[in-house]
């Protein structure tokens, strides 16, 4: 049993591109690692900032399928209005976008990134302890893990 309540992560898609493979994999991996994931779906920058505050999350994960500019505007909005909430970014990130993110101190995860590296980053950014698997987790097929969580409608 965890001594602390689970850390809360808001996952949002910045663009109107509906590819969900990556974001789904990350959401499942974070849940399997003990995080509480709130999925914002396709949300505008100001909506993401508002949701991060409203949901009192410990971390925001942005999935980007468009240009880096939209993510940068979102990050800037978060830093203005919720400076304590860290951000990381995943998705189709060309090397130049990776450098831009690094330049503002944000970690980016391009295609092919390992899920354990993403989970490690989430733990580091939120100060979460590595979770111990519960008996329920053991032997649970990974693909079915989302059935155990509070459903959040896809938008």
């Amino acid at each position: 049993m965890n001594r602390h309540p689970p850390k809360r992560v808001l996952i949002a898609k910045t663009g109107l591109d509906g590819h969900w493979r990556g974001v789904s994999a990350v959401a499942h991996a974070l849940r399997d690692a003990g995080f509480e994931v709130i999925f914002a779906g396709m949300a505008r920058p100001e909506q993401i900032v508002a949701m991060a505050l409203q949901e009192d999350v410990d971390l925001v994960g942005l999935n980007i399928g468009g240009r880096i500019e939209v993510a940068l505007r979102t990050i800037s909005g978060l830093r203005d209005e919720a400076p304590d909430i860290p951000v990381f970014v995943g998705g189709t990130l060309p090397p130049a976008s990776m450098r831009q993110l690094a330049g503002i101190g944000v970690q980016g995860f391009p295609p092919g990134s390992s899920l354990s590296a993403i989970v490690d980053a989430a733990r580091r950014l939120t100060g979460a302890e590595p979770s111990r698997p519960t008996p329920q987790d053991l032997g649970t097929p990974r693909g079915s893990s989302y059935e155990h969580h509070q459903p959040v409608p896809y938008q």
Partner: protein
Amino acid sequence: MTSPRNEPSVLTSSGIPLKVVYGRDDVPAGLTSGWPGQRPFTRGAHAQMYRSKPWRIFQLSGFGNPEDEGARIRFLLEHGETGFIMEHDRNTADHLYDLDHPDVVARHEDVGMVGAVIQSLEDYETVLDGIDIASVYAHPGGGVVQHAPFTLACYWSVAHRRGIPLASLTGTSQADFFLTYLGCITKQQIPTSAGLRLNLDTLEFCLERMPRWTPVSIAGYNGADSGLNGYQELGAVMANAVEYLDGLAARGTLDLARAASGVAGVNFRVSLDLFEDIAKLRAARTMWTQLLEQRYGIRDERAARLRIHSLTAGSQMTYQQPLNNIARGTIMALAGVLGGTQSLGISGYDEAVSIPSEHAHQMSVRVQQILQNECNLTAVADPLGGSFFVEALTAEVLERAWSFFGQIQDRGGFLATLDSGWLHTEAMQNQASQLEEIESGARKVVGVNFADGDVSEFEIDGFQGSSDAWERGIERLERIRARRNGNLHKRAMTELERACNSGANIIPPMIEAVTAEATVGEIGDVFRAAFGDWTPPIQF
């Protein structure tokens, strides 16, 4: 001494156990009989296959402004592409939003990044300027179900204005449910039942007036690249076809054999599991022939000859060591060719970074030209026919695809499994186990979890296209709204609304609407009012 055939099995990507070696008794009786071009078409759609007609080099392209899109299509045609596929901006086309929709304005930098901004008939004319659409085979976009009627009406109207009779026009539509109801779910779209109605309207319109046009093309690719395995992809494609054929049978307006020929142009994903995908394409033709005969009593040769477009798996292209993707694309393409595909697209080697640069696009065409001209691949039809292994695998994929088809039918049919999320769950479970295998190292991916050293790192910038697509598109939008004939436009939109609500065929009023310079967002407003929104069934 143990026979090598009793060694522990290895699995295909769909989980089919593979023996070390196959023999005569592994091949089910009956499957090797027949010739290419003859029922059940296992061995190929045509008797002479690539000697009579090489496969079509058919690449997806599009970004930025209409001029950018036109330039890239002409570039590809000049370099040897033999048909073109237009890619449209996701923000506007997939959602049927104009550029001033608040959801698009909020992400205006993204506009035109992965598809061209085409909001009106005028934009279509700009794209197609200098392209001989009377002779080139086209797929004018419209992969998205709710977008297809608009984009087809625009393309056909350009042809009409050039004096090209619709009856002589060659090309294909797509209007694929796998795309936005399973693989890339849009923020907003019409319900599946309304989408089916639009596709049936398109089928009716084309089958009555456009004998050389493929009215819809079910794209299993979009299901497979979202996680469905090979036999699931095939079973689901056939279940989708049943929705069209049952729908047309219920309308009773067309001869069903003729209708079936309009549904017989489909699309499959070809992946790195070379032999399973060869088997899948062979099984697909067989299954289609069986489906038509068993369910509809159709034995018509033209209807029973499944025509296949193959596209290499974008999700198997890696971000790391991107030049390796040229080898991957070649192997996946080979699956399409050895499986007897009629047309082929190869993902760019920069697929994991961006849409294709000119160079990546050119490489996709060059690989196809190498396969067509340097390898003697076009000489012999169904070169693997009679291989113990390939015939056994074809039979196995076919059997499993029928079983999966049955599971979909038991759950109310293809659209019902999209509405309920059952198909999504199947796809997600496969995807999760694939990722687990990569994460654990059980499945090796070169450059990603294995062999990741690179003596000379090759970095791809990521093709960024044009950065002014939103601004310039807004200018065009405002100009069109200001200059068009308001009365004509209003009357056309009223007619379109009436057709949506009455059940009359949507295509003729859609052509009137685009001719009156209706914009893509205005079409979307009519659809949203008439049909409402689909509720995605999945949770992440």
